[in-house]
């Protein structure tokens, strides 16, 4: 059974009745297996938050079905073992950090001593024990986000759905969240999170879901994406003579000058870099360094998400 499943989900939205309708999510289907960390990526307006809200029952799909642990997402019980953090910490400002968590615990059916123990543990886990009695409105955005995380940890959920959870966090907060994600994943929990911080995707995710304009571009492991990002090899050499440069150019290699004394010979991924190395060696050229040239994840995911569709289909 999949942790999350979207089946041909379409959401048509309209900001106001006088504004035109638009398709926020377009026949989107994907699944997220149980356990592990899955990134949810796409440019602004791709439909990530809309999809997450539909999973949480905050929005109703225009067409299609969504399931959490096999239970239809419009049934409140589907969220029994689900925790959520939004980009903005949505907390009651009149409560203290502790009261806020007690409220969350109570709503999950945890009361009395059990609630108190769970709240203390959750606050300690997010390094907020010192702010236990501070009113929420006096906490910084980063601290509020950590409080949201503490709230998410209550009730021992199996699935964590986070919408840009790192937003507003300082570097320490981000490190804390990353280690929490890894801790939770190591205990078999499912973490599905949207983010624009591609570094987090690279470091945390075993697989990702990429959407663009409400449509699925990719759903699968990270490895093929990183392989797709391999553009070729850069060979750094001292400035080459014109005759040799022309010969290499004719063979399909690209030569660009780097500084006053160096050339970079680019070997596209469809050509063999050892062949270029042999030519250079035969001409007595000393190779300074060799590096892999990668297309940035940002380029792949945001500027040309369609390119992912090819590997997804294959």
């Amino acid at each position, binding site marked *: 059974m999949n942790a999350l499943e979207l089946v041909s989900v379409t959401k048509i939205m309209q900001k106001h009745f006088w504004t035109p309708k638009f398709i926020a999510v377009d026949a989107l289907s994907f699944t997220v297996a149980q356990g592990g960390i899955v990134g949810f990526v796409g440019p602004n307006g791709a439909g990530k938050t809309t999809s997450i809200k539909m999973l949480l029952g905050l929005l109703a799909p225009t067409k299609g079905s969504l399931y959490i642990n096999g239970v239809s997402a419009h049934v409140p019980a589907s969220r029994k073992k689900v925790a959520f953090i939004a980009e903005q910490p949505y907390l009651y400002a009149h409560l203290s950090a502790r009261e806020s968590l007690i409220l969350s615990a109570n*709503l999950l059916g945890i009361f009395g001593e059990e609630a108190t123990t769970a709240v203390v543990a959750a606050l300690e886990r997010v390094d907020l024990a010192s702010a236990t009695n501070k009113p929420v409105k006096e906490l910084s955005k980063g601290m509020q986000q950590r409080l949201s995380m503490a709230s998410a940890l209550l009730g021992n959920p199996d699935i964590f759905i986070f919408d840009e959870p790192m937003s507003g966090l300082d570097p320490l907060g981000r490190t804390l969240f990353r280690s929490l994600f890894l801790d939770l994943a190591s205990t078999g929990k499912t973490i599905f999170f949207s983010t624009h911080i591609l570094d987090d995707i690279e470091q945390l995710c075993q697989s990702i879901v990429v959407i663009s304009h409400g449509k699925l571009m990719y759903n699968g492991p990270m490895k093929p994406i990183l392989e797709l990002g391999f553009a070729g090899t850069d060979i750094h050499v001292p400035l080459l003579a014109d005759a040799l440069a022309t010969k290499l150019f004719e063979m399909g290699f690209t030569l660009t000058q780097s500084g006053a004394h160096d050339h970079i010979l680019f070997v596209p991924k469809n050509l063999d870099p050892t062949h270029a190395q042999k030519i250079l060696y035969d001409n007595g050229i000393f190779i300074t360094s060799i590096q892999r040239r990668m297309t940035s994840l940002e380029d792949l995911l945001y500027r040309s998400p369609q390119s992912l569709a090819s590997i997804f289909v294959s």
Partner: protein
Amino acid sequence: MNTIFIITKNTFSESIRNKILYTIFGFAAAIIILSISFGEWSVFARVQVMEDFGLATMSIAGLMLAVFIGVGLLGREIESKTSYAILVKPLPRYLFVIGKYLGLCATLLLTFFLMALIFCITIVWLGGALTMGIATSILLIGIEMMIIVAVSILFSVYTTTTLAALFTLGFYCIGHYNDLLDVSVFEKSSPILVLLLKIVYIVIPNLEHFNIRAAVIYGSGMSPLYIGSTVAYGLLFVTFFLVLACNGFSRKDI
């Protein structure tokens, strides 16, 4: 039931901190106390003027509280999305609406009770008697407030905070002038208009039923049947508006 109580408690603790609540309460209390001097300018007995003025002030203050606290609290919570803290939990949404309603009612009725207390102390201080009529009138104004809160929640579910406040005020006005919807006047000219007015007449409660100030002032008591049926009438409309609000909120994209 536990969940409703938790949401009610949270709503109460949130709304009781609202500054508007204290502003309206302070203003109403000041008017009730100041109305002692109004009696001297009137041809009627001082206590009668005080009773009339005090009950009217409580009714208007109740409306203001219901509009500003009711619409403001729920509307703002929907717009600012703090409701996510509760709505992403495995709970049916109607519990949220009912919990909010009960929490708001608890706050407003507490404030109303304090206003009534000041009003009663003032009456006694002027040498008047606390009659059953006064108690009944206060009860019915309380029920009227409960209807207004339910309506403000209903409008908050369907529209923006500002529009919900305006609609609730409009509802209060129409509710008090419901008697004037003299359908027969239009009967011959336009059957569509007649139908529309009949719908308005049925859907919007006649809030004048809750206004028994004249009877209190002139000492003509209200029958227990009238009081009972008016309370039931009010509670029926509260249920009706809450069912509509719950239904709307359950389908609402948030």
